[in-house]
């Protein structure tokens, strides 16, 4: 049977993390499931967790007045959902909607923030890993903005 600790330890996002830290993280982790069409979180809500997606797809959406929601990106198996728990004001900036049934590991951001404050080595590890995710998503968004397939 797969334990939470093993799933976390084997997840690429936590590759190379000392077992002491994966133990700490496991203390903040729980299983989560979302039915298709339900929202994992909504813009403006408190951001107190993040998710390791184990299966299914989640769409990140943004709303503009008098327009349908715009789907900015989708995240799938093996990907990380959510970093607003890490930075003040700890509020979600987008909606996240399960496009299909989603299984995930939820990590309690409040719990993790406390542990990161108490242990700066852990805090630095988390920041480094999330900074890499942010950099990848920023670059993907820049490329998306170029609208490279449009007729010139």
């Amino acid at each position: 049977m797969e334990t939470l600790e093993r799933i976390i330890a084997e997840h690429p996002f936590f590759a190379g993390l000392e077992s002491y830290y994966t133990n700490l993280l496991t203390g903040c982790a729980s299983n989560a499931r979302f039915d298709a069409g339900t929202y994992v979180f909504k813009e403006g809500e408190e951001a107190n967790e993040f998710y390791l997606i184990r299966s299914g797809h989640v769409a990140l959406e943004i709303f503009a007045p008098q327009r349908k929601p715009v789907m900015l990106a989708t995240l799938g198996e093996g990907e990380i959902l959510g970093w607003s728990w890490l930075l003040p004001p700890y509020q979600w900036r987008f909606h996240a909607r399960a496009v299909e049934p989603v299984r995930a590991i939820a990590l309690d951001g409040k719990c993790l923030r406390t542990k990161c404050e108490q242990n700066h080595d852990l805090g630095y590890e988390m920041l480094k890993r999330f900074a890499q995710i942010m950099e990848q998503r920023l670059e993907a968004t820049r490329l998306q903005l170029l609208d490279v397939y449009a007729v010139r």
Partner: protein
Amino acid sequence: MMMMATAATNDPMLPQPCSVRQVVQETSDTFTLTLEAPSGGCGNQFQPGQFSMLWVFGVGELPISISGDPAERDRLAYTVRSVGQATQTLVGREVGEAVGVRGPFGTGWPVEQAQGRDVLVIAGGIGLAPLRPVIYEVLHNREKYGRLVILYGARSPRDLLYRKELTAWARQHETQVLVTVDYGGLSWRGNVGVVTTLFKHVRLQPARSLAFACGPEIMMRFVARDLETYGIARERIYLSMERNMKCAVGFCGHCQYGPHFICKDGPIFSYDRLRPLLEKYEL
């Protein structure tokens, strides 16, 4: 590896008239034109990745990659985005009307080098067209190749080419097809994001893989860089380049790109040859 026109005349500058067999609308602005390839004419033996010069009589000549099946010797297929007068006239040809064909020209994808290896095909937009012959080649000779992974990015769901074939390819043995769009409507159930975001879902062995990419140049620049990070060596990454091809045989110089003529030395190049040029401003 340049292959000159195989037309009966042996004159690479002389177009051969070929009659239109079929025109299929792929998307709102993209069409696949299939031409009859009479024996001995129309350069009907091509390597995946090569292109032809298509004459629309009275309008002009266009370089168009061959998008059909190399095993179908009696026809030549071209997928054309209709964006100007020449392309509009070309895709507006009726069945039985003539189109002038020169070629095939240029280098092909190194499919022989890919034998025994995993093959990663990465296409953006209409860039899937020059890669489709590679996919046919691998699927017709499945035992010669390892896994086939096809990553395809388009602007929106309605811009996806060859939708039925994508579904059929995904059902083939040892074949993974991942599709993404830059802008997905709420009814779209697939991936949203640029094609490079699909890399993390790819299942193959980078050290024994060859990658073939075709799409807008900036997309290929990002793709090639990420492929290297993924573990595929520069010399095993191949890109299809596009410039203003005119004569198609390296005489006129219109398609010069650094020290290369795209029509003659390309359009397929390995990334290790292209990398210094791709990063030059305004080249």
